[in-house]
């Protein structure tokens, strides 16, 4: 807070100054702790040796959960299902969403504001409403018996799509359109301009959108649960387990996901630093 700094400077040094300068930072760090504690608990509980099925306190230390992740019935099957749906949904949503983002930023056409609204609305719809409306559709067209992998996939592409458009749009809007104009001035056609100039420049945005899609899809419970039929994804497995007694392996999966994501973030950071350093 420069205002506080300036005033404090005028008032001279004192304990008040340190406080004014650092209070917000301390408060902010406390909030960060609040946000981090549950993750640390997940990590801790991944080493838990529970005394009974329904125990959710730390009863003893063991490595058994890490060596036997697939122990609980259906856990790894549900993980595989979630990974498959996550990858396919990411592919679909990223493809459709990137095309839409290019249309929205690089083209002028009638009905743009209607298209904007259509892209925005799914993000402003509570999940339970979106999930129930899809279920209402599937029931009405008579495919209620076919609920499962494909209906989940349709739903996941749908709710990831808007987030992809917004993410790619932000990156695209930040690009100088003169780069593309320059390419065209040098007789590149639209296709060449896209693959040689636009796509590489927008790629970080597309990659970010894909990562976001994957984590949204992998994590979704409410919409999935309404449209899953007999199919079980990882969040649905966790939900079911929460009613029956939670196997500690769930926390192992949570910890692994966290570590993998951090590794990806770190690798991205290092790569961009190396690029900047060159």
């Amino acid at each position, binding site marked *: 807070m420069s205002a506080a700094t*300036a005033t404090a400077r005028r008032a001279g040094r004192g304990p008040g100054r340190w406080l004014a300068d650092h209070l917000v930072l301390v408060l902010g760090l406390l909030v960060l702790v609040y946000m981090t504690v549950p993750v640390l608990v997940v990590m801790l509980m991944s080493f838990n040796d529970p005394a009974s099925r329904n125990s959710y*306190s730390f009863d003893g230390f063991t490595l058994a959960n890490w060596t036997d992740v697939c122990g609980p019935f259906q856990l790894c099957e549900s993980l595989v299902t979630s990974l498959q749906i996550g990858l396919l949904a990411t592919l679909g949503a990223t493809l459709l969403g990137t095309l*839409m983002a290019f*249309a929205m930023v690089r*083209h002028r056409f009638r009905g743009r504001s209607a298209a904007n609204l259509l892209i925005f609305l799914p993000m402003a719809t509570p999940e339970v409403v979106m999930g129930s409306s899809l279920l209402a559709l599937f029931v*009405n067209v008579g495919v209620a018996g076919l609920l499962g992998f494909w209906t989940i996939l349709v739903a996941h592409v749908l709710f990831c799509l808007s987030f992809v458009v917004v993410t790619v749009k932000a990156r695209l809007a930040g690009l100088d359109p003169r780069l593309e104009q320059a390419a065209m001035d040098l007789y590149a056609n639209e296709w060449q301009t896209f693959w040689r100039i636009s796509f590489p420049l927008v790629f970080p945005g597309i990659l970010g959108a894909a990562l976001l899609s994957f984590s949204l899809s992998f994590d979704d419970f*409410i919409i999935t649960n*309404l449209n899953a039929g007999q199919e079980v994804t990882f969040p649905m497995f966790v939900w079911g387990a929460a009613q029956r007694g939670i196997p500690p392996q769930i926390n192992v999966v949570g910890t692994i*996901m966290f570590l993998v994501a951090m590794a990806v973030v770190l690798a991205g950071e290092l790569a961009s630093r190396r690029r900047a350093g060159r």
Partner: protein
Amino acid sequence: MAGPLRTAEPTGTPPAPGGRRGGLSGYLLLLPGGVWLALFFVVPTATLVATSLYDPSGSLQLGYRMTGHVQNYADSIQDYSPQLVRSFLYAGAATLACVVLGFPLAYAIAFKAGRWKNLMLVAVIAPFFTSFLVRTLSWQYILGDNEALVSFLRTIRVLGEDGHLLATPFAVVTGLTYNFLPFMVLPLYASLEKIDHRFLEAAADLYSSPFTAFRTVTLPLAMPGLVAGTLLTFIPSAGDYINSELLGNPQTRMVGNEIQDLFAAGDYPTASALSVTLMAAIVVLVFVYVRRSGTEDLV
């Protein structure tokens, strides 16, 4: 967003192939995603409204008859008004808590973090990567009766001798706050980050106190982020039922719990009516809020 230029027709160049079809290729790019949104968002929403008007005596096996049964709305609101009210109360409380917690954090990241900025931002997003449900379950442990937090609060007499945290409205709001806090912090940070520090220096030079500077300079400039963050936390909180199910008790059920259970039980007309009611209430609230806060150019 500044209006980006159209690139298909750079002046003074030979017309690039496809350049003249500028308008049409825009539609073509939009088509696949647009069709998906129309088929699986617009049509389902209409279907949901239709389903909410079906005769409630129908079932999946017997089929449904469209009788324009508006009574479904009156019935469902009468039966589930406590849950509806509770959803908005809890979502409101969680949103308020997100503002109170999120503002100092966003402020600290934007103005105080220095070279730790990126690290703090990663720390905000990092919990996302551990599954939502798994993290929510870890609150069962943190707030559990036999754990450190409750013992401590009992010792310092904040909680009574047999006071609980888990299975209370407090636990549900805590869970909602925790789960949606990043959606408050990130837009707030984005707004604060853009503030020109010279405005604050100017305010200080003109003898405004730090508080006045905050109220008259920082806060108004942070409004777009605050409005976006409020919507991003309030809307999902109002529809959520995971926190109320995992951290609450039967007296903390929200409307999402009921919608889910009604669908599972096959009572599609009532479930749809309740779902449409939730959406309508949210739309009205958001509309009023956005009007009041004076940032209508949000979308």
